[in-house]
C-alpha cells in the first residue's frame, strides 16, 4: 500500500497540471519499508513530450540526496498521462527501474485527475491501494 499525505497528493497533481501539455514527472521520498511517502520531489521532464517522460538526472540526484539525508530514500516515481488512463504503458513497464518502487500514474484525460499506484516486478503490473493521510 502507498500512504500519501494529502499535501503530497496535491503537489503531484498540481505539478502534472502545470506541466501540460507535456507529461510531468517527479519522485517520491519516504520509508521503503512502510510505503509512507514523506516528500514530493517535482522534477523536470527532459523529454518535454506529451507522450514520454525522462526524469532530469540532476533533479534525481538532488532528490536522492535529500531523501537519504533525512533517513529515508526515493521509494517511487509519479508521472502524468495526458490523454490516457492512469495505468502503466508498455514503455513504463519496460523501463521500470526498481521492483521495490511504487509507480504512481496521474491521468489528466478527464476533468478530474485520477491518481493510482502500481508495483511493477519482472514486467508484471499489480495495482496497490492508496491511502490519503489528512493534512
Amino acid at each position, binding site marked *: 500500500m502507498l500512504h500519501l499525505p494529502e499535501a503530497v497528493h496535491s503537489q503531484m497533481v498540481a505539478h502534472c497540471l502545470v506541466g501540460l501539455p507535456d507529461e510531468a514527472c517527479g519522485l517520491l521520498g519516504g520509508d521503503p519499508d512502510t510505503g509512507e511517502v514523506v516528500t514530493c520531489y517535482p522534477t523536470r521532464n527532459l523529454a518535454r513530450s506529451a507522450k514520454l517522460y525522462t526524469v532530469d538526472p540532476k533533479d534525481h540526484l538532488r532528490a536522492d540526496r535529500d531523501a537519504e539525508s533525512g533517513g529515508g530514500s526515493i521509494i517511487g516515481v509519479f508521472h502524468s498521462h495526458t490523454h490516457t488512463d492512469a495505468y502503466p504503458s508498455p514503455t513504463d513497464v*519496460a*523501463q521500470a527501474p526498481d521492483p521495490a518502487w511504487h509507480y504512481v500514474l496521474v491521468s489528466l484525460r478527464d476533468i478530474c485527475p485520477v491518481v493510482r499506484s502500481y508495483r511493477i516486478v519482472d514486467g508484471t503490473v499489480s495495482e496497490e491501494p492508496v491511502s490519503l493521510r489528512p493534512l
Partner: protein
Amino acid sequence: MPVTVHLPTVLRSHAGGAKSVPADGATVGEALTALAVEHPGLSGQVINGDGTLHKFVNVYVNDDDVRYLAGLDTPVTDNDQVSILPAVAGGAVPLPPPLQV
C-alpha cells in the same frame, strides 16, 4: 584514499546491503570496474560487456552527470563522490515492436 561510490537501492543487495562502498581507480570507469571485481553481482549492471555505460543508469561525479563530462573516462581523485542512480523514464506511447531477424 579511494573514491566513495553511492549505490541505488536496487543494487545494494549485490554489495552486502551497503549504501556506499569505497573503490579505487583513476577514472570513473576504473573505479566501477574495480567495484564489480570486488562485488561480482554488480558486473554488467552499470558497465556493459563492451565497456560502455549502461543505457538505463546515470553516473555522477560529485554533482555532475558523467555523460556531460568525459563519460567513463572522467578522472576521479581521492574523496570524490561517485553516485549511481537508475535512469527514470517512460511514457504513454507503446514501445515499437521488436525487430524481426
